């Protein structure tokens, strides 16, 4: 049942994604890509708790988890910052 429930969320989110993204103008497609880079850094939340159920091999799991936290944080911090930097340059005509 869990599989069905998770798939349900997945399918609805994909449809929501299509609706949202198709309204983004071509002018903003590069910031859209770097901004979605940042959102995909949500894996950091998973990385923080992934090792919770590990009993044996804890040391390895912690190292891999820590590396995942670092990589996902690069995405989050770098993604949001660079997107902000780009969007700040888009100005309306005075």
């Amino acid at each position, binding site marked *: 049942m869990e599989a069905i429930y998770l798939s349900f969320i997945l399918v609805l989110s994909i449809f929501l994604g299509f609706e*949202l993204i198709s309204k983004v103008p071509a002018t903003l497609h590069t910031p859209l890509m770097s901004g979605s880079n940042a959102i*995909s850094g949500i894996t950091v939340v998973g990385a923080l708790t992934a090792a919770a159920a*590990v009993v044996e091999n804890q040391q390895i799991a912690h190292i891999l988890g820590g590396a995942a936290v670092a990589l996902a944080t690069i995405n989050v911090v770098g*993604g949001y910052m660079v997107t902000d930097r780009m969007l700040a340059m888009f100005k309306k005509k005075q």
Partner: protein
Amino acid sequence: MTINFLINLSYIVAAILFVLGLKKLGSPATARQGNLISAVGMLIAVVATLGGKGLLPWTYIIAGFVIGSAIGAFAARKVEMTGMPELVALFNGFGGAASLLVGWVATYAAGNSTFINVTIILSILIGGVTLTGSIIAWAKLSERMPTKALMFTGQQIFNVLLVLAILGSAVMFCIEPSNPVWLWAILGLSLLFGIMAVIPIGGADMPVVIALLNSYSGLAACAAGFVLHNNLLIVAGALVGASGIILTNIMCKAMNRSLSNVLFSGFGSAVTSSTKVEGEVKPITADDAYLIMEAARSVVFVPGYGMAVAQAQHVVKELADHLESNGAEVKFAIHPVAGRMPGHMNVLLAEASVPYDQLVEMDDINPQLPNVDLAVVIGANDVVNPAANKDKGSPLYGMPVIRVDEARTVFVLKRSMGSGFSGVDNPLFVGDNTRMLFGDAKQSLSHIVGEFKS
């Protein structure tokens, strides 16, 4: 129980903020605020998670945050706008790598069901392909490796065998999850598959590849969400996945090619045109060009990536200002594949302080072009090639282009005669209303700006 309830409640808030943030990306006026809203959502999700149980040891968490933030902030500050495709390619790869690692960690948990094992495999597979595929895309974009499509005999057979080996290892992993051989096999084969998938794609097609890998990095986060039964990862991953797919589709349409054609055909390596372009090239000097520009009431600039390479966008902006104060209406026509990633040209022009209401998309500018006095093509070639509309023998036939040949006069700024990225001849250069302004675009334009000033 209550802590878990609160964490999930804040995940809902985070998901709402991600959606609102993307919604605000619908207009340049609200986009910056939208990005901030999305970042707040991320902060809430992370802080809530840190309040829960079953976390990594704090030393690992802090080390991860410090290292990741330092690298991310440094890259975001230092990157040049022309280097944005490389940065996005690398970030895609990091996102994939993080999902791969999360899947890997989950293999050490005891008593995983087959469903969990399948999602672990997907997480490692998609994450691994995204990681190495992105590294190859980055290397091709930054010209650290040859940009042409890399093909060898038996490539297809090798790839089929590779896919079969991945499927075999996946099945064996589900049967014997405790045998580490299958985990290593899936890890290694996934990473190899990412390399094999991107090396046969030419440098000119990298915009499509980055968009696709952007989508994969989201889907990898989705798979990790299935592994951990985390709704927020699934929602956020799906949003990114959908975004990448839409952009991939737009890019393919703009090049008049199918996705499978981009991924498997090795276009960009060699194309021969069946028809020869004949006619006389009419050059013009910068002094004469100035006289025509001064008389023009409406001017449309059509920039290509060549303009950015020559760092000419700032002088173009200066010229546009002079034309405007001279009473002309100025617009910039942007083809979807101008630049090296979706929307790249818009960012480069925004950096040169061109206001976004002057940037016009191809479909909006084309009906206006017959009434335009002067179209100025700078560093663009294939995207203004009229053969795409008229010549059935041209390899570009059917590709949507900006129809500058319909403007009253066309200037083409070009270093010398020669064909574009695709190697296809361009009949625009010998058109009756076309004048070629040879030489370095930046110098020619500076000269004209100088005339306006005097």
